[in-house]
């Protein structure tokens, strides 16, 4: 190490990389440093008249994690955008292919950390199909009960985030009360607050216990009131409703073309719900409605989710009353070696269709594991919905689609 020459009289050799770094530090252009790889990239990274790039994320306050979007702006209007993914990539599919069937459930968990149980479920279902396991009915009811709780948790957080992205400070903390009660409940049931790792091939890990039931009963007695209270903050707020109505309109055809599922699809008027369309578990025995809206805008997406909370409460109520006695795990061999083959399973999560496609080659590890995640699919419709809106609305559109970056980047 030589002493640095005094500032100002430094001779700067132009080929010294440190000097160049010094000069360029802090100046960041969102344009990639390599030549454009596709026509689309070339077109996007050429600025038109009066346009500018703005780099939103991966450390932006409202990109829901580590999404990076390069926005092409004209004034404040979004002209075009380029989402850059992969900041949270962990290679979950590959990890699953190198773990045995039981282990890979734990890898599925942190995909969407807000709705972990829904990430486990399709994988577990697909494994069960491969292994031809009959799941005990009590286990099925427990699965439905715990996942519906998880759905309410996810939707109430969505409400808070939606309001936070529109500048409201209070709803996020009110909805966190809801979320915390359910997290405590699920912690009593599964042992974890966030990444439950609860579903097992052929059942669930442990029967429902007294603490869970007392917490659940306590909460159910006031859940409807609490949720109505929280909704009162936003549903009658003129500013909120005016900003959301007619914003980010998604029509039926585009939604189908973009493979949108879940509440985002139901907000366009299509009553597609995998719990009814392709029934799994004990959903045929349960009564619930499929809330839909015809507008397809942000407000509709928000309201559909809020209606779903009420339906979930109905399902939970029925589960508690209909739950039979019996074991919670099927009898299984210690080492799982399914016959060679392939299986696909999908469930209806809080964001849409969660699915897993598993190929087995007869060993104790999946040969190929493919995870279908709704967040990733919904994020592609951002390209259709955002252009033409202001930056503020772009964030509202993002929030109303409710992507979780853990699931997008896998």
């Amino acid at each position: 190490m030589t002493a640095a020459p005094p500032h100002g009289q430094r001779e700067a050799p132009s080929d010294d990389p440190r000097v160049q770094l010094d000069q360029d530090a802090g100046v960041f252009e969102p344009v990639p440093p390599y030549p454009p790889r596709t026509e689309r990239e070339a077109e996007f990274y050429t600025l038109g008249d009066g346009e500018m790039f703005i780099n939103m994320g991966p450390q932006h306050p409202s990109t829901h994690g580590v999404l990076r979007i390069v926005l092409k702006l004209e004034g404040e209007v979004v002209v075009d955008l380029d989402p850059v993914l992969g900041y949270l990539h962990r290679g979950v599919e590959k990890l699953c292919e190198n773990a045995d069937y039981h282990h890979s459930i734990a890898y599925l968990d942190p995909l969407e950390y807000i709705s972990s149980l829904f990430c486990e479920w399709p994988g577990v279902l697909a494994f069960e199909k491969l292994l031809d396991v009959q799941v005990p009915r009590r286990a099925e009811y427990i699965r439905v009960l715990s996942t519906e709780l998880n759905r309410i948790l996810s939707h109430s957080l969505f409400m808070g985030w939606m309001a936070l992205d529109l500048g409201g400070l209070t709803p996020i903390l009110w909805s966190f009360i809801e979320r915390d009660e359910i997290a405590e409940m699920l912690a009593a049931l599964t042992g974890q607050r966030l990444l439950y790792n609860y579903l097992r091939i052929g059942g669930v890990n442990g029967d429902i216990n007294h603490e869970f039931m007392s917490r659940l009963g306590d909460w159910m007695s006031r859940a409807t009131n609490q949720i109505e209270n929280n909704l009162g903050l936003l549903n009658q707020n003129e500013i909120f409703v005016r900003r959301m109505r007619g914003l980010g309109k998604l029509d039926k055809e585009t939604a189908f073309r973009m493979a949108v599922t879940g509440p985002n699809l139901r907000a366009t008027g299509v009553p597609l719900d995998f719990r009814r369309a392709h029934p799994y578990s004990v959903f045929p025995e349960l009564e619930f409605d499929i809330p839909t809206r015809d507008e397809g805008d942000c407000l509709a997406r928000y309201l559909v989710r809020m209606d779903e909370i009420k339906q979930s409460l109905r399902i939970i109520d029925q589960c508690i009353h209909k739950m039979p006695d019996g074991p919670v795990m099927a009898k299984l061999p210690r080492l799982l070696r399914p016959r060679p083959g392939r299986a696909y399973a999908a469930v209806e999560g809080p964001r849409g269709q969660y699915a897993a496609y598993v190929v087995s080659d007869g060993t104790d590890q999946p040969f190929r594991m493919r995870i279908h995640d709704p967040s990733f699919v919904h994020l592609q419709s951002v390209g259709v919905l955002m252009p033409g809106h202001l930056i503020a609305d772009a964030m509202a559109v993002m929030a109303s689609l409710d992507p979780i970056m853990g699931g997008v980047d896998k």
Partner: protein
Amino acid sequence: MTAVARSWGRLTLAGKILFTVIPILLLLTAGLVLVVVLFGKPIVDFLAANIWLVRFIVAASAVLLMSVPTAFLIIYMEMKVIALMNLRIGPDRVGPFGSLLSVVHGLKVLMKEDFSPTGSDRLVFTLAPVVVYMSAVMSLLVLPFAPGLFGADINIGLLYLFAVGGLTVVGLLMAGWSSFNKYSLLGGLRSAAQVVSYEIPLTLSVVGLLILTGTMSLNQISLNQAGWFTNWYVFQQPLGALIFFIAATAEGNRTPFDLTEADSEIVAGFATEYSGMRFGFFFFAEYVNVFIVSGLFVALFLGGWNAPIAWPEAWAIHLTFDPGSTGMGLLFALLLVPPILILALAAPFYVGRSSLPWWQALIIGFVLFNVLAIVVVGGWAFISLDWVAGLLWFLGKTYLFVFTFVWMRGTLPRVRIDQLMGFAWKWLLPASLLNLFVTALAVIVINPR
């Protein structure tokens, strides 16, 4: 090691500070006494000849000194009130009920690195927070806090306030431009658009009031509203007051019009690249602005320092007691009354509870005496001194409005930029013009010259 150094080493930190500060203070006092003795006469003569200079220096320093605690108080209020609305606890560690947290925040930003990003325009970058803060502090000069308690009674006080308040946007634009950051630029431009648009309804909404008062001096406007609360201009100008309140919210960049620093859209707007005390200036200026718009609203529409009820002269309490008239008796009273009263207040506790040690009883007596003294002196000041009562009324009303701003921040989401501009030009501007015409018509009909 000498004996002096050893003793110095044994001292605690507090001792070291005391032993350093006290000699310095002694030296300074001696120097001051020397200066006064040698040059006292000419200095006093000069100041007496130029009393405006004294007045200016005192008013400027008072306003500058006042702005910081005001900002601290409002910041604490915002943290605590929003926390309670969010069903959180909020600050509760530093000081009683966490009330010193904002002071600690202020010290923290003072100690942070003075940083400016690559590519920024250093001079403009440094000046921007100063411009913003100074415009806020300069506005405080003309606010009438109490009868006889104001920085300056300018006969165009209201115009001065709007003019100086408009300087804020220059500072925000400077910050947005010089930061070399697109988020800052967007924030600066947003603030320019917003403040310029809302200045028009803001100014027009008080024109009707000016027709009624016939003066722009805030002091005179407050005086006009003396008497019962029905004299307040909010009852003669309800629409004007409403427009003024909305436009003032936008002027102060408060929720739901806080688009310039919308954190979910443009990170922190113009303040994105600022840190340390430069950010602190922006932060303080925002809260001083909240105080100013609340105070202005109170002075214009809610009677300023006047109490809501006019006591009939027959009921008025007149304390003819003047502490100065007691002469040496005052000194003796100050010397003797506290210990006697403390002992007298402590005695029942010591006698009544045998388990209480004497020193705890004394502490209880001391606390009770302090409460009593504050009540007595405050009550005396409130009754006999006009400006104390006026200041209390003014601050009470002003902080009610500060609370309203905080309340709105806890409750409302943010509007969109086009809704914001549409609201200003399509609704507020016609409404303020309507208010102006109706007022003018009413004045002509009721009171023709």
